[in-house]
């Protein structure tokens, strides 16, 4: 049910207030509620009918330029007043005149005055022919400026300090669109207007350059600026392109829509479409600017086969033959279960589907897993146990309807920037917001409550919240009664908890926890979000189940503005799981070990499908050591850098007879491979990604694949055919048709019907998507309460005496995971290295100063990292990233796993520190 839309950037109810009309130039038209005169006129006469300068589709009305002025009278012949239409509500039955002489003269004069302080060098200007000022000037009929040349600002200097952003304020017309974009869209508050009158001018921070300011280069200001006063190095807003292709960003699970400008098969720039349901004209710097990796000289351009320890270029045919032969031989010798595959959450649904099909139907094993294992597998499992479906229950648009947000173990302003900006806007407006995180994240600074717990104690903290909700009598009894089961036993166990002990374990004041719990439970609608700070723990799955308990006990399920919403990390981690890239569930989450379902799969694929247990990623390494696993196929997965405990992974891969890697760059893992297949990047192929709110969106080929490369899906099809399984050529349309016949919640998904904004699954056979899950009943019938007691992780239990500090891992905005892509863009100019966040107290104890190298030692190994001293972390806790391979932070991370889903515990590492001496290079040691 679509009852709302965006009009002029504002949320407006669509139902016409039937009888209400107003007159435009003497003719009556229907008026909508809360509509401005501008949106009213534009709705009936199109967007160009009234000129505007300071108004922008994604910003609140401002009323600065007055170019949008119209005359308004309350009666047919009543006196007329001039009003700025963009910020004046329509009065029903009023008379609006849009182009009288008086108005035309006024508009013309305004624009003329603006032009007196604007360089008239349009012909050489970057935005010539794409300039809103130019368009408006032409529209109001200016041929020449009548005013004599007076004082002006034409001598203002350009700012070219930044890797992406540029400014030339001689072109500025003081419309404040950039300031509002930075405030209202990104919430970074970098820009402001300084001075007044003639001196009024835009500043960045304390009148700094872009590079020195706190700017996060989201590009919102550049896209908003109507002239070239703020722009970027790609001249994004004015590029003249052969074609503009709409596609989906590949850098995170938000799934922003991008509009890519292409000239001669070269990508020139990326802008964000205003009509995108996900991102409404916004992006972060990764989506908008970090695309130049795609034709970087380092791209792999030919298949490589390792012979005698050296990679030698090969043709595709040679590579396929080599692999097919080896696979066949290994399969014959050791059986199909000696081969395993890891798919990629970076790749499309179609490619993931094909990969699991290749393993199940062609190789004949359930040894297929995906990188979801190392991030959100506990989410999928936990939510399946509680609700029956392991996906976000609601949509991001629900932030408009919710009264309270709770963000647990997630740092969305860095890791999910566009959703992060929305969450930040929510918190900045002073609305109730709770952040549960060991680090004082950017969001935590704005939140009403920051529960700064010790890493690894999520379960204890959530138990405290549940306790207070029950003791304060804030349960939603009707919801519990009608929609859930298992509550009585659960309640008893919660009430038996020793709160003081939990307070001690978490290190968070119980009164603060109580207030936060009351806030969450008493909000009419409360929404929770969680990230890898929840899942990458030994109790990850249990934490997810407790988050689900919190939602159920307060009745926050099944309507707008509520629910449990995992912030999915990689762009298609949802899709990889949906498509069946996990051992125990095939395409559509159907139980791969169930004979009935096995029969159905076998019939569907036309070959017998294995029913035996498959290996999860960590089990694959164990099997390699045990000599049971002989070959592995990695689709775009850099396991050597991104999986925990690097030494173990490296030696496991070294044990295998065949390692095949599909990649776009020579990663750490590629170096260990026997065959490397050069894949096409997301800009060079078509398919679908499913974002964190279950939205299946179209990825469209923007440029042809770089010479020598192939889309991952095509590679899968080729190898299937080579190994004797007839699979038609790769095309998203045909693969989706196949998927829609086997994955129940894809039943109505058709490539041609996905449109610009995709559809949220489940998609019914009639093509209708679903914004909110579990509205009437849960997927599993009744929602189930699960109790989980806090259990200390073995990591700290075993090592705390020798390794008293806890290191946790986090992300920085500028880089994506192991950074193979972002490190090959200008993003490296902005952030150049990994750092260790350390509290001043701990730093002082070890005589560590800002910028010193610190040797961090864990029970597995040690690395040297540069210290950044900050109170963002509490004493005893440190945090670091893993974007740069030089560091190999995973040399020190542990092999502890979530007890249920086997997701590795990246978030808790027992460690000791000292100031480094001498050399800083780290050598991955072998076990």
């Amino acid at each position, binding site marked *: 049910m679509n009852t709302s839309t965006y009009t002029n950037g504002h949320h407006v109810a669509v139902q016409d207030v039937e009888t209400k009309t107003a007159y435009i130039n003497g003719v009556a038209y229907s008026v909508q509620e809360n509509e401005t005169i501008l949106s009213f006129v534009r709705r009936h006469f199109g967007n160009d009918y009234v000129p505007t300068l300071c108004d922008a589709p994604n910003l609140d009305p401002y009323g600065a330029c007055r170019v949008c002025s119209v005359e308004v009278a309350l009666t047919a012949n009543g006196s007329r007043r001039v009003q700025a239409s963009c910020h004046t509500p329509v009065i029903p039955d009023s008379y609006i005149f849009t182009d009288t002489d008086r108005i035309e003269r006024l508009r013309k004069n305004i624009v003329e005055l603006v032009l007196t302080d604007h360089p008239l060098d349009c012909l050489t200007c970057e935005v010539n022919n794409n300039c809103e000022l130019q368009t408006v000037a032409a529209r109001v009929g200016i041929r020449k400026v009548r005013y004599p040349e007076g004082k002006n600002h034409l001598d203002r200097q350009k700012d070219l300090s930044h890797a992406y952003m540029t400014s030339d304020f001689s072109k500025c017309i003081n419309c404040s669109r950039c300031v509002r974009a930075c405030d209202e869209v990104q919430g970074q*508050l*970098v820009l402001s207007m*300084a*001075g*007044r*009158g003639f001196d009024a001018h835009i*500043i960045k*921070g*304390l009148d700094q350059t872009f590079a020195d300011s706190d700017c996060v280069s989201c590009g919102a200001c550049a896209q908003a600026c109507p002239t070239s006063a703020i722009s970027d190095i790609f001249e994004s807003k004015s590029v003249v392109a052969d074609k503009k292709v709409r596609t989906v960003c590949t850098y995170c699970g938000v799934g922003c829509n991008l509009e890519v400008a292409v000239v001669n098969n070269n990508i020139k720039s990326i802008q964000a479409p205003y009509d995108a349901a996900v991102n409404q004209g916004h992006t972060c710097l990764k989506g908008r600017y970090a695309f130049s990796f795609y034709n970087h000289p380092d791209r792999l351009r030919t298949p490589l086969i390792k012979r005698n320890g050296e990679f030698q270029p090969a043709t595709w045919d040679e590579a396929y033959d080599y692999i097919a032969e080896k696979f066949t031989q290994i399969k014959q010798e050791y059986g199909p279960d000696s081969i395993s595959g890891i798919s990629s959450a970076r790749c499309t649904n179609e490619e993931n589907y094909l990969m699991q099909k290749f393993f199940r139907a062609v190789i004949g094993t359930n040894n297929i897993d995906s990188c979801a294992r190392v991030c959100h597998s506990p989410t999928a499992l936990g939510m399946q146990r509680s609700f029956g479906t392991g996906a976000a229950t609601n949509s991001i648009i629900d932030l408009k309807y919710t009264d309270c947000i709770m963000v647990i173990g997630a740092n969305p302003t860095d890791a999910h920037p566009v959703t992060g900006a929305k969450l930040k806007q929510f918190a900045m407006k002073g609305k109730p917001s709770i952040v549960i995180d060991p680090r004082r994240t950017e969001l935590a*600074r704005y939140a009403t409550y920051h529960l700064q717990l010790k890493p690894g104690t999520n379960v204890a903290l959530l138990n405290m919240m549940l306790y207070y909700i029950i003791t304060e009598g804030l349960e939603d009894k009707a919801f519990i009664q009608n929609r859930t089961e298992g509550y009585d036993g659960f309640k008893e166990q919660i009430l038996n908890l020793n709160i003081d002990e939990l307070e001690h374990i978490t290190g968070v004041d119980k009164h603060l926890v109580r207030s936060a719990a009351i806030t969450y439970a008493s909000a009419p609608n409360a929404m929770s979000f969680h990230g890898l700070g929840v899942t990458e723990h030994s109790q990850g799955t249990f934490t997810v189940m407790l988050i689900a308990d919190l939602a159920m006990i307060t009745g926050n399920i099944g309507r707008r503005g509520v629910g449990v919403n995992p912030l999915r990390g990689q762009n298609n981690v949802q899709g990889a799981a949906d498509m069946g890239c996990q051992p125990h569930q095939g395409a559509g989450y159907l139980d791969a070990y169930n004979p009935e379902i096995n029969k159905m799969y076998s019939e569907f694929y036309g070959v017998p499908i294995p029913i035996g247990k498959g290996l999860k990623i960590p089990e694959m390494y164990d099997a390699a050591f045990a000599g049971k696993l002989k070959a592995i196929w990695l689709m775009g997965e850099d396991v050597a850098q991104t999986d925990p405990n690097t030494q173990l992974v490296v030696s496991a891969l070294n044990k295998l007879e065949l390692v095949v890697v599909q990649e776009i760059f020579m990663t750490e893992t590629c170096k260990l491979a026997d065959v490397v297949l050069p894949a096409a990047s997301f800009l060079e192929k078509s398919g679908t990604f499913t974002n964190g709110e279950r939205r299946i969106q179209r990825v469209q080929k923007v440029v042809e694949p770089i010479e020598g490369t192939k889309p991952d899906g095509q590679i899968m099809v080729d190898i299937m055919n080579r190994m004797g399984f007839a699979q038609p050529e790769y095309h998203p349309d045909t693969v989706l048709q196949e998927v829609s016949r086997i994955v129940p919640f894809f039943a109505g998904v058709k490539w041609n019907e996905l449109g610009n904004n995709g559809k949220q699954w489940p998609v019914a056979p009639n093509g209708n998507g679903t914004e909110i899950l579990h509205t009437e009943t849960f997927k599993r019938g009744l929602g189930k309460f699960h109790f989980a007691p806090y259990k200390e992780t073995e990591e700290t239990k075993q090592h705390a005496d020798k390794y008293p500090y806890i290191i946790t891992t986090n992300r920085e905005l500028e880089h994506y995971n192991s950074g193979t892509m972002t490190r090959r863009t200008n993003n490296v100019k902005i952030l150049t290295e990994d750092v260790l966040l350390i509290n001043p107290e701990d730093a002082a104890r070890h005589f560590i100063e800002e910028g010193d190298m610190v040797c961090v030692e864990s029970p597995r190994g040690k690395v040297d990292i540069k210290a950044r001293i900050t109170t963002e972390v509490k004493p005893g806790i440190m945090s670091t990233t893993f974007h740069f391979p030089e560091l190999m932070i995973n040399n020190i991370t542990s092999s502890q796993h979530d007890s249920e889903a086997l997701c590795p515990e990246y978030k808790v590492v027992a460690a000791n520190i000292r100031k480094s001496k001498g050399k800083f290079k780290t050598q991955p040691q072998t076990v």
Partner: protein
Amino acid sequence: MENTSTIAFTADELKEVERLQSLYPEHKAAIMPVLWMAQKKWGWLSEDVMKYVADLFTLPYAHVLGVATFYTMYFKKPMGKHHIQVCTNISCMLRGGDSIYEHLCNKYGIRHNETTTDGKLSIEEVECMGACSGAPMIAINEDFYENVSLDQVEKLLQSL
């Protein structure tokens, strides 16, 4: 981004800041009187002072600079002991404000926002000070002088 400079209000002054903040529905509205306090204390609003005040309010730096530069009464650089503001906005201009400004500039050899070398005197050309009914007007430090002629200005200067 933590501000490491040594600029800080005393405990009593911080109490005053709190009192001022409590007068408004939103704390940040007290930014103007607090900037004024800061200017009284340090003579002018240096970058470090503005950062300090911004951090007190957890406001973005650009916001504080925006406010400080909007109002001419906040000094963005050290000013003379006697700071003379001359209004040349419309009402004052029509009544001779411009010539008062030019006269002073010529007399002391300094112009807008400059200070004499001895640090005694500075001149600022300001936009409307809201005293149009007494145009032309000048202000010396915090005192307004209205309906001034060139002669009267001279006399005022001698009395300094």
